[in-house]
């Protein structure tokens, strides 16, 4: 077994609200090895951000962890391999040992995640000085190096500037530089490019990929954009209503999806070759998790739903060594159902494009 960096096992979280308990995360499992990239895909409210906030120990105060563990593997201060369950540690320990130091996070909107009253340089050096007591001179030099690494020219000058003096793409580069300042083992990117233009988005994704390769760190992407996922991810987890409904490597998810929700997500997004008259849509909207879900949470929106979907939640069925999906359609007793034609046509087209470019699908 290669080096695991984080294992989320059977995580289950509720939120206390005035309207009652909202069961936001309903037993999820995520594994990640060093140097890998995993993407968590889902609509808003599916629980993807909450999962990662739990891993960072920054859950809102009304959150209740019902069960589960988040095991994080790291090298401790004496250079020994160590493992910790983040959910069992207090905020202070996490603050000192995990946040920004071993796991850091890149948020969606760089204008809100940067402090408008602090210079860029000070914000990059902050973490190093706080965590490692790096001397100021050394921290300054390292920060300049980081700015160059993330592709900012005139680094010396930028160090003394404030966030409002930079463009959106530049700001997100600064946020990435801050995240890398303490040499983390794991980088969590929560919708890192949603607030950016498409040209800048492409550049930021290329940057994160480059940094990941050079530093050999693990990256978790949280996003709803399947185009972004195809660009960056090794493995994909598709989340729906607080559960992971399909997991597999990126080729399995895009060329051989099994769950009707994944079918819907993939076909609802037009690609450049889509010329169908209508887009395939998933009817309705996600369930309200305030009410306990009976059976499969997706059943109400699923035109392939069977009687059993209303009664029992499907287990994860194994498709291949790395590919699992939670849908009763994969049960041997279920009728054989094909994915929607729009999608199978598109997958055929994509495979054709890959073949004609002389690459192979494995």
């Amino acid at each position, binding site marked *: 077994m290669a080096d695991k960096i984080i294992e989320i096992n059977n995580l289950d979280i509720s939120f206390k609200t005035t309207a009652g308990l909202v069961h936001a995360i309903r037993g999820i499992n995520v594994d990640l090895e060093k140097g890998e990239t995993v993407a968590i895909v889902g*609509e*808003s409210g599916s629980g993807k951000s909450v999962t990662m906030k739990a891993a960072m120990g920054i859950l809102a105060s009304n959150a209740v962890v019902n069960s589960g563990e988040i095991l994080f593997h790291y090298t401790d201060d004496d250079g020994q391999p160590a493992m910790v369950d983040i959910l069992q540690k207090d905020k202070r320990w996490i603050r000192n040992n995990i946040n920004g130091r071993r796991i850091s996070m890149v948020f969606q909107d760089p204008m809100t995640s940067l402090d408008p009253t602090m210079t860029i340089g000070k914000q990059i050096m902050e973490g190093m000085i706080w965590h490692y007591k790096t001397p100021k001179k050394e921290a300054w030099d390292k920060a300049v190096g980081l700015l160059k690494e993330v592709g900012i020219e005139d680094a010396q000058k930028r160090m003394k500037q404030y966030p409002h003096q930079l463009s*959106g793409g530049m700001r997100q580069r600064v946020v990435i530089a801050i995240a890398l300042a303490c040499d983390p083992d794991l980088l969590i990117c929560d919708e890192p490019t949603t607030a950016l*233009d*498409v*040209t*800048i*988005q*492409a*550049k930021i*994704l*290329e940057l994160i990929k480059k940094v990941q390769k050079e530093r050999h760190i693990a990256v978790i992407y949280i996003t*709803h*954009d*399947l*185009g*972004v*996922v*195809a*660009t960056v*991810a090794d493995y994909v987890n598709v989340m729906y209503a607080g559960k992971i409904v399909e997991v597999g490597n*990126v*080729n399995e998810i*895009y060329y051989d999806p099994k769950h009707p929700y994944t079918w*819907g*997500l*993939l076909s*609802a*997004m*037009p*690609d*450049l070759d*889509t*010329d169908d*008259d*209508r*887009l*395939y*849509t*998933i*009817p309705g*909207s996600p369930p309200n998790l305030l009410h306990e879900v009976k059976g499969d949470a997706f059943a109400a929106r699923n035109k392939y739903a069977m009687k059993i979907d209303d009664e029992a939640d499907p287990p994860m069925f194994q498709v291949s060594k790395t590919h699992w999906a939670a849908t009763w359609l994969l049960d041997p007793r279920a009728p054989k159902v094909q994915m929607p034609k729009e999608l199978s046509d598109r997958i055929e087209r*994509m495979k054709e*494009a*890959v073949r004609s*470019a002389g*690459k192979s*699908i494995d």
Partner: protein
Amino acid sequence: MPENQSTKEPILKVTDLKQYFKISDSYTVKAVDGVSFDIYPGETYGLVGESGSGKSTIGRAVIRLYDPTDGRIEFDGMDITGKMSRKNENTLRTRMQMIFQDPMASLNPRKTVGDIVAEGLDIHHTYKTHEERNQMVSEILKKVGLSPEHRSRYPHQFSGGQRQRVGIARALIMNPKLIIADECISALDVSIQAQVVNLMKDIQQETGTAYLFIAHDLSMVKYISDRIGVLHLGHLLETGTKDEIFDNPLHPYTRSLLSAIPSPNPIFEKGRISETYDYKTSGINYSEGTYHHISGQHYVKCTDEEFNKWNS
């Protein structure tokens, strides 16, 4: 694509539109700098560009939320630049409608959906009896996939997709000939986006309304539009049918924009590097360019020299 386009009169004709914002005595932002395009009845014209390129400003100038600095906007054969006659203003305010980006911010939280949708009717007194008004509201709600019972509810009682349907109903009830959709799906989830886009297409087929579709999601723009205009820094750099733009992009900016679109094809995506385009170092001066005809309806804004270079 509407047939016999050359014989049809455009519903909207924008000529050399300029929209400047004076910040101080010495500083003026030229948000839109000499943009011309036409929209024909029943078609969808997509405007794309990065933030700050002026696409929303164009939408707002066209519907006269702003006073254009210079240029001419003709809607349905009448001049709507400068001071309008009462009759023209009335026509503009009924026959051109707008759908906004964030439905929560654009719907009055203290009004019922029925009143929100009927506001245009109330202002323009287009009904005779109260029953007629309610009848019209119910019909339009049904058309956008809501039910008449939703009339008495408030915006917060709806989901994001339903709220955007209310926004569409509000625009539709005036029987518009042109709807300006300013990023109207970007705040919605992927699965909901598809529902709204399908609805917009259905409505267009049924009512023959034209759309000015402003967005930054290029795959969606390509899917919904008949023709596309590419904006950058207030200049319309390239315009043409969607196939002309996507199959044969000429301007380096268009090319960099298209190369940046992520596609859901992982094997392809892994090795792809997007083209870089920087206006400052590209040596291109947008203001010196004039429109050059390439083929069909495909035009690019550049100097003669650049045109020869790119088109070779």
